[in-house]
């Protein structure tokens, strides 16, 4: 399955150390601007993303349509990386992984399927690729970095424990 990633979800998954596991089952695609943003400062997450790009586990694609990108930025008050990710997902006809409110709103208006970091965690468990105790620890970390609402975390916890 191909999914275009915005910097928000990519960095969150790197921060909770789940990005490598994820690339085993999902083809991760990012626009060039997202790559630049993720690697703009040194750190563990930037290092991991850089290694995964070198290993071809994250594919970097150029987004050509600069007019469309500018229009998306103007219409939804989002920045270049976020607009490039939307544009690329739309062009490739695949979902967008995003953990940013305004970019999610833009995706909805543009009829784009979207998902967030917490969904990848739940998906890995449902595919038996992540054990429950580890998943629970990752969910705690993700709730800290991802800052999801209590309702989202409680539901995710319920799904993990109950296997819904």
């Amino acid at each position: 399955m191909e999914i275009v990633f915005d910097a928000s979800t990519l960095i969150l998954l790197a921060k909770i150390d789940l990005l490598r596991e994820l690339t085993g089952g999902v083809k991760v695609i990012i626009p060039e601007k997202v790559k630049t943003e993720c690697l703009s400062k040194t750190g563990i997450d930037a290092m991991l993303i850089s290694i995964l790009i070198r290993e071809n586990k994250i594919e970097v694609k150029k987004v050509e349509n600069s007019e469309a990108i500018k229009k998306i930025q103007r219409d939804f008050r989002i920045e270049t990386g976020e607009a490039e990710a939307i544009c690329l997902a739309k062009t490739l006809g695949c979902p967008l992984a995003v953990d940013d409110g305004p970019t999610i709103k833009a995706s909805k208006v543009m009829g784009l399927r979207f998902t967030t970091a917490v969904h990848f965690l739940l998906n890995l468990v449902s595919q038996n690729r992540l054990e429950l105790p580890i998943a629970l620890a990752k969910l705690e970390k993700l709730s800290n970095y991802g800052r999801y609402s209590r309702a989202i975390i409680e539901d995710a916890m319920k799904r993990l424990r109950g296997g819904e």
Partner: protein
Amino acid sequence: MGVISLRLKERELKRLDELSKLERKDRSTTARELLEYGWEFLMVKHYKEGKLSLEGLAKKLDISISEAIDRLSELGIEAPIEFEDYLRGFKAF
């Protein structure tokens, strides 16, 4: 560094003096720091209200997106992602 002159209310001057005394810093340094804090507070508020994206926030604060995530996490600022959007997110798979 640029120089500006501005009128402050008595209350604001009192606060500036109080803080510079507390922090043992001169008035100019304290005023600059307050501007910095005020700017960050306002930008985080805009982010919280969904007026600013994460990338936008990072840009305004002159930090990376990773650092913006860390900063928001430290401040305990909830991500503006609605429960309904979360439920929709399952449909992507």
